[in-house]
């Protein structure tokens, strides 16, 4: 039960992942990449206020997080999870609305960029403080158990940086104590902002932490979509089957700045040559071409479709009104209680 294993799946020829799933995942990745490229260009053009944080290079891990979840599951995405959020069902227009501050977005201009969510639909709205959403996921799963729901799981994302927070530790331990069906997907993209792994932790393998909590732990190659689908899909299955909580640690490189304000000049050339620095989207694309899973025309059609979806989402959101400052400025829902004096 507590073993820590290394899994690898070189190509989808392993049959672990059916072609359809792979292609579906690829399309979400494509959509996320296209959308985020658009966000970047809007940001560069001064059309987005605040920060833009993208998941370039991490779409394979992220999409696999969103793809195996069902209605009734809990998803706690983090900074770099555009692909997973979309795959889980977040409407692209809501993302555009959040970045552009539309009053029709789920955050109504009150919160921006990655700090969005649809809690009623099971997608938690992250706060910035890393690690904090793990225990929130645990609580949501406990609620479902209390209410007698069945066949639900939770999936909470984290970076290797966030794994060093006290909040993460407490949340992970509590998940094990409560034996909730939780999958934690950690992505070690080798940096927390500008800080390299050497100044983040000193263990040989982050996945070794699993055992110390009573989690099952697996490593995976975050640049290999097929591996991501296989390993994350299997972990989701195990969680649904009532196994102990699962810790997955994916290896990638963040292929962008921390945010778009950051040129990431601190990323060394050496690290850029590492296997984990490969672009998961390019790898998946090449595999599709090499194995001739989809012909060039259909592939182009997918690209066009992604671009069209992105355009539509952005155009819609751009037309919508900004929030109105003449609101009632009340932070609680029990308005009758509101302090009239302020």
């Amino acid at each position, binding site marked *: 039960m507590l073993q820590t294993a290394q899994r690898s799946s070189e190509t989808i020829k392993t049959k672990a992942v059916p072609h359809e799933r792979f292609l579906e995942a690829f399309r979400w990745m494509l959509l996320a990449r296209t959308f985020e490229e658009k966000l970047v260009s809007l940001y560069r053009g001064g059309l987005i206020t605040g920060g833009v944080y993208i998941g370039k290079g991490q779409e394979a891990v992220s999409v696999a997080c969103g793809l195996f979840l069902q209605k009734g599951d*809990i998803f706690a995405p983090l900074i770099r999870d555009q692909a997973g959020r979309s795959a889980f069902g977040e409407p692209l227009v809501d993302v555009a609305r959040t970045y552009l501050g539309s009053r029709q977005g*789920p*955050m*109504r201009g*009150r*919160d921006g960029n990655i*700090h969005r*969510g*649809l*809690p*009623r639909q099971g997608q*938690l*709205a992250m*706060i*910035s*403080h890393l690690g*904090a*959403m*793990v*225990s*929130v*996921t*645990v*609580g*949501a*799963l*406990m*609620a*479902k158990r*209390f*209410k007698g729901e069945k066949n639900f799981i939770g999936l909470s994302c984290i970076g290797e940086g966030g794994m060093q927070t*006290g*909040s993460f530790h*407490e*949340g992970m*331990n*509590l998940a094990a*104590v*409560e034996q909730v069906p939780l999958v934690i997907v950690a992505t070690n993209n080798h940096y927390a902002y500008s800080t390299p792994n050497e100044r983040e932790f000193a263990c040989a393998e982050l996945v070794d932490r699993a055992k110390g909590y009573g989690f099952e732990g697996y490593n995976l190659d975050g640049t290999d979509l097929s591996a991501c689908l296989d390993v994350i899909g299997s972990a989701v299955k195990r969680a649904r089957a009532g196994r102990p909580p699962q810790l997955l640690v994916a290896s990638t490189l963040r292929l962008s700045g921390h945010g778009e304000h950051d040129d990431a000049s601190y990323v060394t050339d050496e690290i850029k040559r590492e296997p984990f620095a490969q672009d998961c989207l390019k790898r998946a694309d090449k595999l599709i071409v090499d194995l001739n899973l989809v012909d060039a025309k259909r592939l182009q059609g997918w690209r066009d479709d992604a671009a069209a979806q992105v355009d539509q989402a952005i155009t819609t959101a751009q037309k919508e009104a900004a929030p109105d400052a003449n609101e009632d400025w*009340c*932070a*609680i*829902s*029990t308005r*009758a*209680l*509101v*302090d*009239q*004096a302020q």
Partner: protein
Amino acid sequence: MSITYLEAIREAQAKLLRDDERVFIYGQDVGGTFGGAFKATKGLAREFPGRVLNTPISEDAIVGTAIGAALHGMRPIVEMQFADFSSLALNQILNNAGTHYWRTNVPVPITIRLPSGGTKGSGPFHSQSMESIYAHYPGLIVMTPATVEDAYTMLIEAVAIDDPVVYCEHKYLYYHLKADKLPTEGLPAGKARIAREGRDLTIVTYSAMVQEALAVAEELASDGFEIEVVDLRTVKPLDTDTVLASVARTGRLLCVGESFPWGGATAEVIARVTSEGFHLLDAPPQRVNAKDTPIPYHPNLWSVHRPNAKSIAAKARNLLRE
């Protein structure tokens, strides 16, 4: 029959567990045969199996878990072992629970019980009153019950409220304060209470200091002064209207709080009264707070550190002389 402040808290929780299946209690040592460091949940784990749960020593995750459960239909009550340890859950309380409704339109109905305030020999880390920290940030309701009756009805109300409630129960009152029976209803949150009527001076206070203020009122009555005591009940929202109406009657304001002197509830009350009711005042408003040091262990020091009937009476007499 007679019931203590602590028993009222236990009874309220028993009733909540009985009447509402969404309620569960979560915290260190609340469960098992033990029933909490102060026995506020004594017997409840047996009476309500699986709904009164011990946790690891993980304040941040305890509150995070409660938030998640509340978002998915439950009404968790969290017990912090001492208010002082809530410093470790503060991020979840302020930044997660406190912001959630405003950000997402989805409220977070959690109740966090903080055993608060000083008792003899408890020292710097088991005596704190943190209401002013929680009230400063938006999104939270902060209750500070001062009577057995309020301890009971306000806890029931806290769980009914859709927003996060920080419920500051005072450890000094646990055994000291008794009532004949539990009420069936009480004032709503956000409403202050005139604990004693008077016309010479208004003491505005809350929590354990209400008892001290009442003692002062009694003492000064023998000198012919009629002191009005306003019990805020909730420090946020703060019932400015009731306070102003009282000051309109008495013309004099003394604010008393057990927490540290910089900022906090007493400063807030004075700022409100002077900006909204300046001309009601016949004399400068005054405050009595704890001293600006950690809370001392030794009873000799502690009895001077916290406001008490003596120090409050001295301040009140001065103010009556102005």
